[in-house]
């Protein structure tokens, strides 16, 4: 995902001379190294100084540039939080804060390097748009949006590497601010964002295969502004709605979907699966850490089907 991001940004930078990249001591490997080579004056490494990374991006933007702040998610959002809030969001500047390796994907690094609450934190700030593409293909679309938009700040939440493509042959194209049906069904709808949607895709296939259900799979890549009408339509047209997210139980997609369902007095059964509201001291595989948080395919399948 990060490679796809870097490659797309490199391409966009050839089209948009205002694109600047400000990193905080993160290795400019692959395409990011190409960007640096091609546009040395448009690439800045501030070192281990994330507050200055965001402040410099604000200053660049105030002078007409289209900057991207880029580092690991906890360092791009949490460490310089007040700079993100005041310098970018209060001033409503079109700066993209890239949170790389969001969620608990850095599963061997411990909770200091996790952002299990980044969606809740970012969504709470006025003006900040929150984008979380589900695969490399959608990362391409999301990055292109960020590279040319002038509306205001974006938190672009990315995974790391090796994510499978889920949206190849998707029913609907990427459109900022709209939910995206990857496949459409009638019985169960599975909603999610970010790379964990792969778990939703696997569950969707199993529901079809084992139970003969017709299943919708929906990428809610734009978490803010949320496509409430689109989600209401999904809730209204399925008997079961499942939300899967790599975020704490509060302040993410699940609670919003329940709000919408409540407001529309929906009959659908809404079930939400998220990370737990706790720090888990586990160092190992990402999948295993997700499982310890309660996010595993078998458990979710059993819970939604009521099977033992």
């Amino acid at each position: 995902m990060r490679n796809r991001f870097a490659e797309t940004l490199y391409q966009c930078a050839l089209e948009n001379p205002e694109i600047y990249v400000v990193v905080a001591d993160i290795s400019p490997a692959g395409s990011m190294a190409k960007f640096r080579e091609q546009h040395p004056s448009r690439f800045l490494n501030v070192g281990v100084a994330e507050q200055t990374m965001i402040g410099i991006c604000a200053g660049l933007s105030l002078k007409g540039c289209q900057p991207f702040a880029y580092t690991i998610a906890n360092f791009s959002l949490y460490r310089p939080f007040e700079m993100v809030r005041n310098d970018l969001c209060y001033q409503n500047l079109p700066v993209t804060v890239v949170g790389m390796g969001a969620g608990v994907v850095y599963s061997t690094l411990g909770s200091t390097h996790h952002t299990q609450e980044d969606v809740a934190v970012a969504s709470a700030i006025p003006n900040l748009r929150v984008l979380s593409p589900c695969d490399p293909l959608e990362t391409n679309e999301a990055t292109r949006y960020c590279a040319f938009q002038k509306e205001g700040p974006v938190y672009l939440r990315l995974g790391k590497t090796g994510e499978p493509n889920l949206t190849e042959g998707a029913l609907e194209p990427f459109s900022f601010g709209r939910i995206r049906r990857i496949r459409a069904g009638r019985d169960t709808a599975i909603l999610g964002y970010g790379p964990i949607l792969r778990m939703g895709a696997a569950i969707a296939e199993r529901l079809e295969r084992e139970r003969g259900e017709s299943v919708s799979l929906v990428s809610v890549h734009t978490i803010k502004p949320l496509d409430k009408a689109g989600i209401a339509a999904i809730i209204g047209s399925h008997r079961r709605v499942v939300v899967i997210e790599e975020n704490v139980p509060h302040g993410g997609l699940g609670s919003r979907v329940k709000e919408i369902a409540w407001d529309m007095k929906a009959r659908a059964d809404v079930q939400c699966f998220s990370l737990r509201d706790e720090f888990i001291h586990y160092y190992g595989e990402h999948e295993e850490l997700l499982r310890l948080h309660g996010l595993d395919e078998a458990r979710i399948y059993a819970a939604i089907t009521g099977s033992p």
Partner: protein
Amino acid sequence: MIVSAGQNTICVEAAKARCRKFRRRILEVTKLVQALHIGGAYSCVEIVDTIYFALMRRESDGRSPDTFLLSKGHGCMIQYAVLEELGILPRSELDQFCKGGGILGVHPDYQNPGIEASTGALGHGLAMAVGMAYAEKAKGRDGIVYCVLSDGEAQEGSVWEATLMASSLGLGNLVVFMDNNDFQSLERTSKSHPSFYPVVEKFRAFGWESHEVPGHDSRAIYEAVVSRGGNRPLMVVCRTVKGKGVSYMENVAMWHYRSPSSAEYELAMTELADPS
């Protein structure tokens, strides 16, 4: 007396008259509100006046290729008074200070006339100024970015992050003033942070050109800037007096954030009157 140094000039007598006028205007505004940051505005009157009237270049349409960013946003009363004098901010707006329906509050808001960035939370302005100065350079323009910090603000770690970055990027188009009035909200800076001094050497150690000047001497402020080397960022440490210009406010901590009573107002107006 006119001092000329290449880009602009400074007339010291005119600067003194303007600064008295700005202090009187700020005092007038105190009548509208229970409290405002008068002490910290008065301490940087000469600094801000010099930036706008002697240093920043003006095109015939009034616009400037240069930028001013007040990092110590709580001192914005002086910026408002200057912008009003320049005709950038309508007088009616300052008359509406902190009133519902007006646009001006206790801290500067980006996109208000003449305001280049929203500041107020300390430790934000310098990094933004670094980004602005870098953009000017990267785009091949000759804009100079002027920024004013407070001395207490330098306790924020973010100030030193940006300080290190500014010199590492060789930003000779960044000119920063520190309003070194030795007061912050609670007590004297020299009492809480005696290790902060000497200040000039610290910035030099970070790769900046730095000089200390008497901060109510417009000519000294001006000359420190126009005589700079220009290949590194410049920090002008201005020795100032909090509440400067009104005897009972000078170096009295409670005037950090307060409006005078009627009797105090009259006395201050008398002290700030133009000499007959």
